[in-house]
């Protein structure tokens, strides 16, 4: 497997009314060609910010990438010029956003929006790009795509809009597709259709896929490797099979125990993680998870743990070895 992307020590800070917020705090990970990486965590854990910063789409101000490097095909994206980064966006690395309702421009037709990447990156003429847009919509199973291409987003259902977003992201055959909570707003049957479609299309083109979600089930079904994030940091990194079989970080363990599963047999009480998700502007000292952690030791309150290998391809950021 070839390394396609490597993120080193990336930190993103936001200045807010209540002070500096470390939305992403020294995270590092790698992505190989053709694999699917899942990034899982709760709201505010920095998973979306870390994805947006790959394409330098963090609104500045208030956000700022303060540290780190993002190596894509040997080039540091954080040092790339404006022209270069525009060349990569939508061309080599594409993004699919969460809210298909607000992520499409309401005053432009679907076709106008889908054909845009082709006109920008492939220098296609309008006519040719428009024909390609119809094809792209056909590929994501939009019925009657020749006609619907001239519809406006409000005439599409949520699922259809997200299909259009996927079509838009894939038109230039990017090397990496980042899907930021791509199906959270959609119904389960549509969600399954879309994720399966996305997975299948990426397998066809050999693109790597990053799926960002809070849903452990989606990760289990589609991802090869997983990063678990909590309060701006990666707390556990492992292959999907390993992570679900032997979760090692207390947060991951807690998360898995607190989610009801379809295949559990008896009516047992869930075991929630006590307490509240942390306020990023006011993080506890040491490990950010320690106030909610049932395995905490004294060291946790004083010093934040770094990621360490506990076995091949399995890293956790925790002082404790949970059996």
């Amino acid at each position, binding site marked *: 497997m070839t390394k396609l992307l490597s993120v080193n020590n990336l930190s993103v800070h936001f200045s807010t009314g209540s002070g500096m917020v470390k939305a992403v705090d020294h995270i590092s990970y790698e992505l190989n060609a053709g694999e699917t990486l899942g990034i899982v965590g*709760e*709201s505010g854990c920095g998973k979306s910010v870390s994805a947006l910063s790959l394409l330098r789409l963090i609104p500045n101000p208030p956000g700022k990438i303060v540290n780190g490097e993002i190596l894509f095909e040997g080039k540091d994206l954080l040092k790339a010029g404006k022209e270069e980064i525009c060349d990569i966006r939508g061309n080599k690395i594409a993004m699919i956003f969460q809210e298909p309702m607000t992520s499409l421009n309401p005053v432009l037709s679907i076709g106008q929006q889908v054909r845009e990447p082709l006109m920008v990156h492939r220098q296609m003429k309008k006519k040719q790009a428009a024909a390609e847009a119809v094809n792209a919509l056909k590929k994501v199973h939009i019925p009657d795509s020749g006609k619907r291409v001239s519809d406006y987003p409000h005439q599409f*259902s949520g*699922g*259809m809009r997200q299909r259009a977003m996927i079509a838009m992201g894939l038109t230039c055959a990017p090397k990496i597709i980042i899907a930021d909570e791509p199906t959270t707003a959609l*119904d*389960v*049957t*549509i*969600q*399954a*259709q879309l994720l*399966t479609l996305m997975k299948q299309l990426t397998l066809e083109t050999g693109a790597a896929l990053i799926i960002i979600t*809070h*849903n*452990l*089930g*989606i*990760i*289990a*079904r*589609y991802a090869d490797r997983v990063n678990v994030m909590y309060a701006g940091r990666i707390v556990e990194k492992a292959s*999907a*099979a390993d992570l*679900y*079989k032997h979760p090692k970080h207390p947060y991951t363990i*807690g*998360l*898995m125990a*607190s*989610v*009801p*599963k*379809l*295949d*559990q047999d008896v*009516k047992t*009480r*869930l*075991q*929630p*993680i*006590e307490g*509240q*998700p942390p306020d990023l502007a006011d993080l506890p000292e040491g490990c950010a998870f320690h106030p909610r952690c049932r395995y905490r030791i004294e060291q946790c309150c004083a010093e934040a743990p770094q990621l360490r290998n506990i076995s091949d391809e399995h890293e956790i950021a925790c002082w404790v070895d949970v059996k």
Partner: protein
Amino acid sequence: MSNKENNNLLEVNGVSKFFPVHGGFIFKRKLGDIKAVDRVSFHIKRGETLGLVGESGCGKTTTGRLILNLEQATRGTIKFDGKDITHLRKKENQALKRQMQVIFQDPFGSLNPRMTVREIVGQPLIIHRMTTGKGEYLDKIDHLLEIVGLNPGMGDRYPHEFSGGQRQRVGIARAISLKPEFIVCDEPVSALDVSIQAQIINLLEELQEEFGLTYLFIAHDLAVVRHISDRIAVMYLGNIVEVASRADLYKYPKHPYTRGLLSAVPIPDPEVEAKREQFVIKGEVPSLMNPPEGCKFHPRCPRAIPICQERPPLLLEQGDAGHWAACHNI
């Protein structure tokens, strides 16, 4: 469905809700109906939890609103405690709120931002004159906050000072303040963070045990519904397509829609996932304005047969006792 009267707290019989759609320039004319709920029947026994699942627009929330009398049924009857509640006078409707309450989905929208938590929890007490004096009123609110696991000292704060999970606790305190027998939980955890959902689910279960509550638990998350419910009803485009006990429904789903729905929900375990059969439902949910003829599910159904296009199937008991499904081809 035949049941002994006294055992059922709630009986819904052939209830429909149509919303007229208007068009035209200055003078409105009716274009048609949105059949949000279409001849729905079910019952809930005392102390049990009935889960109501379905995708957005299937009519599950409207069903909840109809039961709560926040919406007037177009036809059909709803009996609560043996009494028809579809045509109540103002006074009786008011009294009904004391027995029946609701917990809403959105913990950020369901609390009035200009009211303190104490005012929110206390509003029902004032409306129904449940307290005799200021002291008792304050005590009662403190007690309620304590029951749901909030510090009574936080009563003076406004909702925006709380996190999502805490807000939902406030919503629950509001719902139980009148000591109702029956609570409609309308997607009570779907807007919460994963790690918080379990806290709220556990709280709801504890309250049920303590106060002998009966729940209608509306949700789209099948895993959550399965966890909390005794029986489950599945809705599609305004119809109930399947009702069964929890164990039956998940082990032996009869309706193709239920099977598709279950299959669409991923299980957080890659090994299990790899072995599962994929039963993908194609296409989109049709519009409620213009639903398909016959069985409303037939255009998306992998097992459709000719009759499905012609006649809507009846909800019939299939094999096991208490397992009902509406399908021509089982």
